[in-house]
C-alpha cells in the first residue's frame, strides 16, 4: 500500500471480489463523519434508536408472556413498569421509538424520491425532532391519564 496521507485513510481498506485490496470508505463511519450535522447525527441516531427499541420489543414479549402466565407474573411486569427505573426505561423507550418511527417515515419519503436537497433534508430533520418531542409527550399524557383513572 502507498504511504497514508491522512489518518482516516487507515480504515478505508476494502477488497474487490478477486481479493485485491482497494481504498474506499467503509463502515464504521463514526470516526470520520462530523456528528454535529443534522444529516449524520440523525442518521446514526436512527440506527441507535432502532437498537434501543430492541429492548422495548423484549419488554413487549415479557408483557405478553406474563399476561398469558397469570396474575403473579403480570404483577412483576406492573411492578417494574411503575418503578423508578421502569418509568425512566419506558420514557426513554417511547422517545427512541417515536424518533425511529418518524425518521423511518423520512427515509421512506427519500426512498420515494422526495426531499433529497440539503434544505429539505434539514427541514425534515427538524420536523422529526419536534415531532418526536411532541409525540413522546402526548403518549405519556395519555398513559398517565389512563393510569390515574
Amino acid at each position, binding site marked *: 500500500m502507498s504511504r497514508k496521507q491522512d489518518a482516516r485513510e487507515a480504515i478505508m481498506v476494502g477488497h*474487490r*471480489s*478477486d481479493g485485491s485490496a482497494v481504498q474506499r470508505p467503509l*463502515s*464504521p463511519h463514526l470516526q470520520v463523519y462530523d456528528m454535529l450535522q443534522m444529516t449524520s447525527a440523525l442518521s446514526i441516531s436512527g*440506527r441507535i434508536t*432502532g*437498537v434501543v*427499541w*430492541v429492548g422495548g*420489543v*423484549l419488554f*413487549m*414479549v415479557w*408483557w*405478553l*408472556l406474563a*399476561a*398469558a*402466565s*397469570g*396474575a403473579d407474573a*403480570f*404483577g412483576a411486569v*406492573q411492578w417494574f*413498569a*411503575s418503578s423508578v427505573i421502569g418509568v425512566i426505561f419506558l420514557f426513554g423507550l*417511547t422517545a427512541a*421509538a417515536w424518533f425511529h*418511527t418518524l425518521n*423511518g*417515515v423520512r*427515509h*421512506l419519503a427519500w*426512498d420515494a424520491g422526495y426531499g433529497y436537497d440539503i434544505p429539505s433534508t434539514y427541514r425534515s430533520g427538524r420536523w422529526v425532532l419536534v415531532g418526536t418531542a411532541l409525540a413522546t409527550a402526548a*403518549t*405519556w399524557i*395519555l*398513559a*398517565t391519564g*389512563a*393510569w*390515574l383513572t
Partner: protein
Amino acid sequence: MAHEYARSTTLRTPLGRARGLGAAKSGMHHWWTQRVTSAALLPLTLWFVLSAASLAGAGHAATVEWIARPWNAVLLLATIGLTFHHTASGLQVIIEDYVRQEWVKITAILVTKAICVVLALAAALAVLRIAV
C-alpha cells in the same frame, strides 16, 4: 493487470459475478422487505403503543380481556411477526457494517435471527393462549 473479456458492457469480473452478486449478495430483497415491513409496522405500531399506553395501570384481568378480543389478537400477531422480521433485518445490517471477521459476522447474524424467531413464537403463543 489488464484483462480482455468477450463482453465489455460490464465492469464485473466473472469471478465477482460468481462470488455472490456483489456486496449485497442477494440483490434488492433485503432492502425491499425492510421497506414493506416498515410501512406495515407504521399503523400497527401506532395502534400498539397507543393501546398499551391506554392500558397503563389497568390490571391483569383487564389486560387479558383486551388481548382476548379477536381483532386485538389478530393485530397483535401481525405486529409480533412484522416487528421481529424488521428487527432481525435491521440488526443484520448493523452486524454486517461493523463486524469484520467473516465467521463472527455470519454467526452473529444467525444467532440474532434464531433469537428473533424464538421470541416471536413465544409471544405469538402467549397471545394465542389468551385469545383462543
